[in-house]
């Protein structure tokens, strides 16, 4: 059984934490982010500022 306080465990904890943050950032960027940008671009093209 690996020691949870070992350096390797610490590295993986940090890696998984950063991966979770990256996943959320990626989701928000392409999801609501691109959805909003696409909407505003079409609205601008359709009706101006």
């Amino acid at each position, binding site marked *: 059984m690996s020691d949870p306080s070992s350096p390797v465990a610490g590295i993986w904890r940090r890696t998984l934490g*950063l991966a979770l943050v990256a996943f959320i950032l*990626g989701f928000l*960027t392409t*999801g609501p982010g691109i959805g909003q940008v696409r909407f*505003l671009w079409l609205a601008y093209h359709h009706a101006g500022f």
Partner: protein
Amino acid sequence: MFARIRSIIAYLQGTRVWLFAHPASLGVVVGALLCGSLAGLPAGDEMFTYMWADPRFCDDCHVHDYANKAWARSVHGQLTTCHDCHRVPIRHYPKNLVLALFDRPQTPEDIPRPEVKMVICEQCHLKSGAEEPLTGPMPDNLRGLVVRVDDSPLHKLHLGAKGRTPSLYEGGKPETEHPAPAEAAGSPEEVAEGKIECLDCHGGLHLEVHRFTATSEACVACHEGIRPADESGRGLSCLDCHARGFLGGSTVAVAE
């Protein structure tokens, strides 16, 4: 506060250094970023569709379920989006987001009456507007089958009129009383003098919007003076005799 910001920046810089020092971890993080981006694509598409094509998005702020229902029942509801007729500039959205958060409309009277320019109706109902783009689900071949009124005698007469008030001979009222159709029907807003527009007859009254079918109420609002008063004419509606003048000559473009 500045110390906190500096510590956050220092942490982020340290994280960047740490990631480059651990390539496996960097690979996992980049992979997670890509997976998140891919997972977000359908959500983004759904969000765009809701904001552009679903009238409930507009209703979230504008509180006009009666208008949504009337639109959904009409032929326009199956083929257009709100944005096809209501050209909303993008500065509207942040302003109305603030209003929705701090001064949300409670009743339809709290909402300014939208202005729909004639050019919007022309897109489908006049030949001159055929090149204008639409964003709703109406397919091009169906758009080609929409009735156009360029050659309809009474449409031409009304749309080409210099003013909104008919002469006494045409059943108009004396100059001291010149209501516009919406005003005569009880709309609280004043209608500016100008040329006749499609919505004067096809837009419906206040709180009855999206009633696109023209009825005799719109005729009578301006032409009350020639409404039949005799026993045999009293039961007639204007369109019983004059519908042909509006529909006659209307064309349907042949779909290629």
